[in-house]
């Protein structure tokens, strides 16, 4: 069986802050990223929070 060539694409399941950060870093490095999200929009829990501590900035 012939060895298949490695694929330079990545699948990321979940688009919370962790998933998004991974996606951005990989995309910046030049990899193709598929960001898979169960809901209709990305962002996870954090996108729905208005503010984060300790600075109370907007989360988005």
């Amino acid at each position, binding site marked *: 069986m012939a060895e*298949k*060539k*490695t*694929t*330079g*694409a*990545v*699948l*990321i*399941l*979940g*688009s*919370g*802050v*962790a*998933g*998004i*950060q*991974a*996606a*951005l*870093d*990989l*995309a*910046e*490095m*030049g*990899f*193709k*990223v*598929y*960001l*898979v*999200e*169960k*809901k*209709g*929009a*990305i*962002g*996870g*829990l*954090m*996108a*729905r*929070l*208005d*503010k*984060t*501590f*300790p*600075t*109370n*900035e907007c989360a*988005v």
Partner: protein
Amino acid sequence: MECGRHFNIEILTRTELLDIQGRPGNFRVSLRRYPRYVDIKRCIACGACADKCPQVVPETTKNLGSRKAIYLEHPQAVPLKYQIDPLSCLKLTENSCGLCEELCPTQAINFEEREEVLEYEVGAVILAPGLKPFDPSRVGLWGWQSPDVLTALEFEYLLAQSTRTNTPLRRPSTGNPVKNIAFLQCVGSRDLNHCDHPYCSTVCCMFAIKEALLARQRNARLEISIFYTDMRAYGKDFERYYQEASEKKGIRFVRSRLHAVEFCPQRKKLRLHYVNIEGRQVEEWYDMVVLAVGLEVPPDIIELAHRLGLRLTANNFAATSAFKPVDTSKPGIFVCGAFSGPKDIAQAVTEGSAAAAAVAEILAPVRPARQVSQNQLPQTIQGDQKPRIGVFLCHCGNNISSVIDLEALLTYAQGLADVVWAEKHLFLCSQEAQKRLQEVIRDKGLNRVVIGACSPRTHEFLFRRALREAGINQYLLEMANLRHHVAWVHPQFKEETTQKAKDLIAMAVAKVRCQEVLYPLEVPVMKRALVLGGGVAGMECALSLARQGFEVFLVEKSASLGGNARHLSYTWTYENVQYHLLKLRKEVEKNPLIKIFLRAEVVKVAGHIGEFATTISSHGRRKTIRHAVGIIAIGGGMYRPFGEYGYGEYEEVFTSLEFDTVRAAGDFRVKRARNFVFIQCVGSREPGRLYCSKVCCTHSIQTAIDLKKEDPSRRVYILYRDIRTYGEREILYQKARKLGVVFINYDLHGTPKVSKSSRGLCIEVWDHILHRPLEINTDVLVLATAIVPNPKVRELASLYSLAVDSHGFFLEAHSKMRPVDFLTDGLFMAGLSHYPMPLEESVAQAKAAAARAATILAKDTVSLDPVVATVDLARCDGCALCLDVCPYKAISPLEIEEGDSRVKKIQIDKVRCKGCGICQAICPQECIAVANFTLTQLRAQIRAALSGEL
């Protein structure tokens, strides 16, 4: 969000992962995509559909109100596209209605869409599914059935609602204003009785404090009590936040766990009956109760993990190793975020980057060689025409509009010279508004833009991009910081705020009027990194970069690699540290891409991102290393508490690390000992060192467990303030108690007293439950001392111009979103020089830093800020005053031919120049100008600032 725009990212919403086949490098993933019934490419999110949709669906979460059957996930959703809920849509359930299809101006509705299975070829998979909040309705006692009892998330929505509408916080049951609120911690966490969650959910303590403070901002007279068991403020800056909340912000913290929330129908209030810290009964009445619910792994994710054959922990979190914190049990499948254990945002972001590094390591051979810079967009409209300025104001929800009269400000802006257009938006940062901004720029032929919103420090990049995409030079922009400099800091003033806002707008207009077109400087990147510090963090980082194919220089100041990890025997999950350390060292040493310098220190730094030049001194010789990026992982130290608790005075008193050493050596003082006392927080959480050292609770508990396991008849006491065994570490705490370790809280009655008598060492401490003094005769006293910053932090900070926090740790660019980046481009941090942390978090940070560094190393060039000085040679008289003052040696003398004579002038190196402007200040001819901050601009701002009255 940046993600929505990145050209390498394809977002697949309403999609589930079904299966992964194949091997690392060659996976075949199958996905199931559920129909959205709205064509993403066509939908313009105008909302015409939802406006007329007859089907109102109440949200199951309290305070989210209701939505239509065709709806947006939330107003700032990415992608900002509507979707149809097939369970409530009349067309899809009863084949009636279909109104949206008729109304949609772009024919985006497609009821024919069907569920489909997609297949992709990928090289690696990252799982970041996150957790779901615990459902409190499962336990009747917590009274969630009452409308005034909310989960923390539901309360956040209520707060947001109240903020948006600028109405007081009202009770959902009666609609009356809320006077007091109780927060109940550990609902669905640290609980074996009402749910099977022995672990700590980690984030709820800080979440509660945050919400309490936000609520107090809405209403300063609101009385807020937080009922807790242990306050787990273990992260960077958390302790200070907690202390401030309790001491300065008037939040009341009650150490008591509530058993129930009872609604009294007569008083229409919630009764909390509890026993206070003194053991007395207290009955209190509340308008509202917030349940700080814990987190759990969603069932569909557990199922997926089983399907994929991933190893899970007892509590269904993804099992990882401290040395491979983002690796699952399946090669090529990685995990980040809370799925591997509940964690805060910064840690989740760090792990996101770490997972990216792990993926990049295995996919390095196929990383695309060349990268297109996103900055290369055609810019048709330039800044050299007559200024046509557009002013855009942001409500920021109501953050700005509740304080400043935006109508008046708008009118004022329209009257300013050269302003040809002005308008306002609810959220200027929304994609929708960004799009609108671009349209206006094109339609109105604007060539300069003023944004009246928030801080340029956080949002300038966003608006610059909008300008870029609108086809005008991105620097033709100025932001007036209405939110941070007016709305948030002057809520007590009325008309004056609007006047100040007018001044800020006038200043911005005055400045942007003289703004010129700038182009970022593209600097070549040399594919080489410098890592400072040869501890676990430094080595992991170096190794990750080397595996990704980059050359690394690893600089360690001591004679060998290993750092603090050399003193540790095992991690909290009982992995052997020394074994892994040895393996790691060998791997680092034999990697051909890593060059190691021992006994080496940094003495001089020059250069910038893409091309730093760091001079190190090693064995008396100096060597200059040229590198594109640098990672600083120089570790931390241990606090030695001389004069405290008899340390240095009695031989039975040790610090934790000392105790580990003597115990490992089989010292008779340990072998013979029957009684052991641990004192926690020695040197931590104290004035001057107001931070939690994060690792000591877990470490002491593990040692206590060992001591008990060796000989159950030993007596072990741990004197603590809050036990901070976050996440699944909580299970260790439970194990220690089960083995009979006695925990005594000394927070209430003061620190333990240590004395020595004929009976040996004697500790007197008050019991927090019995409220009487206890006397413990002990053979060994172990002090869990603080982790303190490496003194070299300040030294390096000044060499590299880096920020340091008030405790002496490195300050990251953003505590949540950029946890391993320095503000200075091209430099990153990892490990204990950032903040105290356990080994696996150090490793995660190291990998994260490697990923962040790789995003630069992977490119051939980076764009440099064009905010640099230029000289007007026509006016320069060559006085050369500027030469000496330039901190970067960017200015050099120049002789040019002028007519028939040679005249002296100066020249400025654009890459070296950082734009500090000292030369501009000193130049007597006023012929040096720092782009964006020219004298003309600053003067214009001064004049504008002083034009209006206060």
